């Protein structure tokens, strides 16, 4: 998967390239509006991460020119925390946005969602090692043993298991499970994970719900 990052801030650009490369993407970096537009039009990318404030001309113009030629998904980054900016970006044809400062995990999660193209296919049956989730019947078993989960715990496990191997930041979990779209001054997600673990992991020798410190949580079979 090829990604173009257009970002003029040197450190941000370098770290985005490094982080995305290490997550398995092939990354090109452009540092000005004209360079970004040139690369975006001449090369084939699966996704473009575009900063709005750029030297030469801004990201809005890049999106506009790009949209006349191509349909590649665009995720734009805006330092300005203004609603108008987001609306403008989405109207110009961007697919998603992130407000600076943002967590890298959050960016990664958005990038993966955009690359999936179209609504993710809901699996009716999810298996992670010996954990089995029957989504339709809302039934969870591990090693054949039935685990009783509350509605919230089930939503949480379902979210993580459906994207197994993918680290989900706390903010995304709060948004997806409880529809809480703001940073609250609480450790609600940590507590919910702890309670989920008590039922899903604690009684079993191998653990499936993992904490990635400073990033978030991931469900995967680490053998």
């Amino acid at each position, binding site marked *: 998967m090829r990604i173009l990052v257009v970002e003029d801030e040197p450190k941000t650009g370098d770290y985005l390239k490094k982080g995305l490369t290490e997550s398995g993407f092939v990354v090109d970096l452009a540092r000005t509006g004209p360079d970004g537009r040139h690369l975006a039009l001449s090369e084939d990318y699966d996704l473009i991460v575009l900063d709005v404030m750029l030297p030469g001309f801004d990201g809005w113009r890049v999106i506009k020119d790009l949209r006349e030629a191509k349909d590649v998904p665009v995720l734009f980054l805006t330092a300005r925390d203004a609603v108008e900016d987001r609306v403008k970006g989405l109207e110009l044809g961007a697919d998603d946005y992130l407000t600076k400062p943002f967590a890298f995990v959050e960016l990664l999660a958005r990038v993966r969602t955009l690359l999936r193209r179209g609504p993710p296919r809901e699996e009716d049956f999810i298996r992670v090692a010996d954990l089995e989730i029957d989504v339709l019947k809302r039934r969870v078993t591990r090693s054949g043993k039935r685990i009783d989960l509350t509605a919230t715990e089930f939503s949480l496990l379902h979210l993580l298991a459906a994207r197994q191997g993918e680290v989900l930041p706390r903010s995304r979990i709060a948004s997806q499970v409880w529809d*809480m779209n703001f940073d609250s001054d609480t450790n609600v997600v940590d507590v919910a994970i702890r309670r989920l673990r008590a039922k899903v992991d604690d009684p079993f020798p191998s653990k499936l719900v993992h904490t990635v410190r*400073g990033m978030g949580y991931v469900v995967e079979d680490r053998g």
Partner: protein
Amino acid sequence: MARLSLATRIGVLFAVVTAVVFSIAGVHLYRSMSQQLESHDDEMLLSTVNHLRRRVAEIAEVEAVRMDPYRLLDAVAERGMLLAIRDSSDRPLLASAPEAVLPSVGTSVPADRDPDSSAIQNWRGADGRRGRVIAAWARIARPSADLVQLVVVRDGAESHVMLLKHRGHVLLALVLGVLAAAPLGYAIARHGLRPVRMVARAAGGITAEQLGERLRIEDAPAELVEMVQAFNRMLDRLEDSFRRLTQFSSDLAHDLRTPIGNLMIATQVALAQRRSIPEYETLLASNIEEYERLTRMIENMLFLARADNAQVALRAGTFSVEPELKRITEYFEGVADENGITLDVAASGTLVADPILFRRAVSNLVANAIRHSPSGARILVRGHEQHSDNFLVSVANPGSGIPPEQLPKIFDRFYRVDDSRRDSQFSSGLGLAIVKSIMTLHGGTVGVKSEPGGLTTFSLVFPSG
């Protein structure tokens, strides 16, 4: 004209008013003077006619009038009048001036009637002189008792000169009055406007460093008291905002310094020696926590700043309150449960509000309540319509309570009731300030009641409709 000073305008207006008043008075005086002079002349004419009639009555025959003219002429000359006498067949007997200047008067007062002012007419001499004239018949002595016609003219020249003089006086008074009124009006206006200049000077002297200064109401004239009061109230508001802003800036600096200080110390200590990879990982993860705290703080402050400038667009919708409150308590259920706290929701009705901001406000209150409740506590979350014109949402928790003197301050930014809780990485000290901002955006209010050792209740009042 638009830039003329108030004092100049008042001076000019004064002069105009003076000119108008003097003119009216002058015209009136001139008229009454001329009327008085005329009636004085007429009286003189009448008395002269009577006098002449008596003299004529002493004369024995008509011819004697011509023989001894001075007997009659002297009487009119000393009164400054002209006289002509004609006999009954209109032949001139005597004239004090050339015949031409004396008129022939058609209607004469009959000899047996006393003359009155109705018989007097205006007279205009051949040389343009003006005056008053009367004609009357007089009877000479018996036995002939013949009639002669007396024509007496009072020359108006004398009165005319007096009137001209009078007019000159009036005009002079008018000019002098206007000349005096303009500067006087200007001076009076300047004097009267002195308090305004003093207010302006006092206002001009107020800077950010001395926002505590106020204009003295006692010094202001009655008309300006209201303005001075309004000005002082404006200063009150400015001072309050300025104080809050200053406080906010210093709190902000302090609150930013803490996580940044942590980051610097932790990183420098880690770099002072070679560490194992797990140690580096621990450091980076701990740094992330500080970064997240900073990010949260910045996000919260941006929200407050935008709310202050009313830049947060309300996306109001109608929603049922109970499921919304249930959803919020569900979110906090785990945390509450771990602390041995139960959340109790009871609500009814629908509310028009921005659902995301509503959720944020109530979440902040519930998080706050959980933080300050002892284990085993029950937090009551209620929502229902009140007095049919507003909607009340309340969050109540038992606990040690908030000291009364701290109650007014708890909605201030960065204010924390318990300073020792500063270290709590999840409390930014902005939660209640955000609740207040959200309520202000909705045109509602937030209130708090606290009984020491009893219930602490936060209430959000949303206006209906």
